[in-house]
C-alpha cells in the first residue's frame, strides 16, 4: 500500500474503500457511521441548531493543534455559541494527492480525540482527492447538529445597555501560534494555539445563569470584529477597558513586532459572553474553575449611546474606537 494519498483513493473504487475503512471507519467507529448508507439516520428532539464551516489552515499541524482538531472545535463551538448541546457532526475531506497517509492518520486520531472530549460523534463523511495544486494538502468541512435546551435564548441581537462583557481567557494565542510557524516570519515561541471545544464551558455557564444574552467565538477578525458584530446586531455600543483584556506577554510582543493588534488576531478557544451584569461575577467565578476559562474576566460593558460602536479605554486613560479587521493582512490561519 502506498504511504501517500493517491488520486485513485478518491475514485470511489477499491482504493477508496480501503482508505475509508482503514483510516476513517476504524478510528471514528460508531453505530450510526458504521451503517454506511447514503445518509446518516439520527433521532433528535427539540429545537435544533445546525451549522457548517470549512477549514483551510496552513500549516495543517501547528503548536497546540492541527486542522482536524480545529475542524471539530470550530463547529462544536459554533453550536455552543447559540447554547446548543452539540451531538452529531459530518466530516468531509478534500485531500491534495501526495498527502502522507501517516499525516492523514494523525489528523483523524486528533479528530477522534477532540470529538470524544466534546461528546460528539461523526455520523457521516466524504473523501475527495484532487490533483496536486488543486488544494493545499488538506481542506476539511464539518457540519454539526445540536439541541438547544428549553428556555435557552442566546443570540447576537440580545445585548442590552448595562450588560457585562466577558472573555474566557487570553486573546490572540491561536493566530500568533500559527503565524510563528510560517516560512519567512522567522520567530520562535513556545506559544500554543488555544484551539479547544467550549461546549462544556458553556453548559457550566448556563447552569449558573439564565441571563446569558449573547455568546460568540472571536475567531477570524479577533475580539474586535466579534464585539463590533454584537454591537451592530444588538444596536448598542460596547465599551471595553484595555487593562482588563487578558493578553499573554508573548502575544503582545509578537504583535508589537509584526504590527498587529491583539484585538484583531484570531482565537479558536475563546468566547465572548454578554450577560446580565448582576450575574456576571458568578458566571466568571464558575468559568475560572473550568480549564478553558481559567483567565476569564469581565472586560467591559454594554452602553446605549453611539449604537454599533466599540470604544476602548486605553491604558493611558484615553478612549479610541475599536474597529473591525479589514481585509486579510496575513495568510490564512483557520
Amino acid at each position: 500500500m502506498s504511504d501517500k494519498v493517491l488520486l485513485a483513493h478518491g475514485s470511489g473504487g477499491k482504493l477508496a474503500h480501503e482508505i475509508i475503512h482503514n483510516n476513517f471507519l476504524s478510528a471514528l467507529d460508531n453505530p450510526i457511521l458504521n451503517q454506511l448508507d447514503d445518509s446518516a439516520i439520527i433521532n433528535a428532539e427539540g429545537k435544533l441548531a445546525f451549522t457548517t464551516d470549512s477549514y483551510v489552515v496552513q500549516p495543517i499541524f501547528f503548536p497546540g493543534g492541527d486542522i482536524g482538531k480545529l475542524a471539530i472545535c470550530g463547529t462544536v463551538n459554533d453550536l455552543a455559541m447559540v447554547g446548543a448541546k452539540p451531538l452529531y457532526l459530518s466530516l468531509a475531506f478534500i485531500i491534495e494527492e501526495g498527502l502522507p497517509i501517516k499525516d492523514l492518520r494523525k489528523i483523524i486520531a486528533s479528530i477522534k480525540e477532540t470529538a470524544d472530549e466534546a461528546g460528539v460523534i461523526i455520523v457521516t463523511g466524504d473523501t475527495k482527492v484532487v490533483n496536486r495544486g488543486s488544494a493545499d494538502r488538506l481542506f476539511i468541512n464539518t457540519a454539526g447538529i445540536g439541541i438547544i435546551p428549553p428556555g435557552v435564548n442566546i443570540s447576537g441581537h440580545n445585548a442590552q445597555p448595562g450588560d457585562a462583557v466577558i472573555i474566557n481567557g487570553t486573546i490572540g494565542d491561536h493566530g500568533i501560534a500559527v503565524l510563528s510557524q510560517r516560512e519567512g516570519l522567522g520567530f520562535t515561541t513556545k506559544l500554543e494555539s488555544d484551539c479547544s471545544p467550549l461546549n462544556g464551558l458553556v453548559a457550566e455557564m448556563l447552569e449558573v445563569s439564565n441571563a446569558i444574552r449573547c455568546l460568540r467565538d472571536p475567531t477570524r477578525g479577533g475580539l474586535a470584529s466579534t464585539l463590533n458584530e454584537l454591537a451592530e446586531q444588538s444596536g448598542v455600543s460596547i465599551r471595553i477597558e484595555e487593562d482588563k483584556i487578558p493578553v499573554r506577554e508573548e502575544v503582545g510582543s509578537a504583535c508589537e513586532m509584526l504590527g498587529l493588534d491583539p484585538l484583531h488576531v484570531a482565537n479558536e478557544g475563546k468566547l465572548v459572553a454578554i450577560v446580565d451584569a448582576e450575574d456576571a461575577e458568578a458566571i466568571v467565578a464558575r468559568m475560572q474553575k473550568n480549564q478553558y476559562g481559567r483567565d476569564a474576566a469581565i472586560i467591559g460593558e454594554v452602553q446605549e449611546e453611539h449604537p454599533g460602536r466599540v470604544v476602548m479605554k486605553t491604558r493611558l486613560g484615553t478612549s479610541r474606537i475599536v474597529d473591525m479587521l479589514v481585509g486579510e493582512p496575513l495568510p490564512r490561519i483557520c
Partner: protein
Amino acid sequence: MAIANDFRRSELVAGLVRSINQHATREARFMEFCGGHTVAILKNGIRQLLPPAIALTSGPGCPVCVTDNADLDKAIALARLPNLIMASFGDMLRVPGSSSSLQEARAAGSDIRIVYSPLDALELARTNPQKSVVFLAVGFETTAPGVAASVLQAKKEGLKNYYILSLHKLCPPITKVLLDSGEINIHGLICPGHVSAIIGSNPWQFIARDYGIPCVVSGFEPLDILQCVDMLTQQVARKEAKVEIAYKRSVTPQGNLTAIKIMEQVFQPAPSCWRGVGKVADSGLVLKPEFKDFDAELNFDFDPGPTKTQKGCICGDILRGVKTPQECKLFRKVCTPMSPVGPCMVSSEGSCAAYYHYGEEDVR
C-alpha cells in the same frame, strides 16, 4: 508586552502631561513626519491628553502613501511579466495605481508573494532559479540598508535572477520641500524614529538652523511621543530651535554607521516622484552603475501605460500636511479600507486609515 507596558505607565504619562500643560503658554502646531507616529497618536488617543494650545498634524512619512501612481504602475506592469515573481511588503498589494493594483494583478494570475524582508525575496530567487524575482523596494532610509544588503549578498552568491525595483525615498529632502513651499505653518517637527535610527539626528540640523523650527526625534510608544511633545513645547516656550532626541535607546546623532555605509555602497541619490508633491531632486535612491544588473527597471521591457490620478482624492494634500482626512469629501463615504480610493486609506501607516480605524469623533 512587558516593555510595552513600561512605556504606558500611567504615572509617567501624568507627569509628562503636567509638564506639557505647564509649558504650553503659546499656541503651537507640531508635525509628526512619520505615519507610524500618526497611528500611535490616534491609537492611544494622545490628542485627548494635550492642552488645546498644542496641535498635531500628520506629515508625509508613509512610504506606501507617497509612492507615485507612475511608480505603482511600473510595479504592476513588471508583475504581469511571465516567468517573474514579484516579492512585496503586504501593504503595497492593495494600493490602487492608475488603473489596477498588485492585488488585481495577482488575481489575474501574476505571481506576487508577500515577504517580510528583502532577504525573503533573496531566498525566493535561490529556490526559483528558473524565474526572475523582483523585490519591490519601497521605503525610507529605514529599509534601504536591508535592501542594499540583499543586493550585496546576491552579487556575492552570483545570483543572476534577483532584481529590485528601487522606489526608495529620503526623508530630509522632502521635509525641506514642504517647509520651502510655505504651505504649512509648523512650530516643531516630530522627527521619525526608525529613519533617524539609521541616519541619526544630525541630518535634521538644517531645519533647526535654517528654519528656526525645533526638532525632536521620537519613538513610537505613547510615552516616547509625550516626551517628544514635552521637549518641543519647552523649546517653543524658551524660543529655542535645536535638534534633540527623545528616543535615545535607538537613535544617536551620527546614526548607524554600518547601515549608512552599506546604503552608500549600493545606492546613489536620484530624483524621485512623491505623490502630491511631484519630482524632488536627490530625494530617492537608485542602484549605482556597478549594480545595474540588479536593477529591474533596466533589465526588463515593460509598459506601465498612461498615468492617471484618482478623482477627488486629496491624499497628496494630506501627505503635505495641508489637509486632514476628515476634510476629504470621499473619507468614510466613498473611500474606506474596504474600497480605498487613495493609498492613505490602504497602508497600515496611512493617515486616512488611522483616522478611519481609531478616529476620535464621538467616543468620549
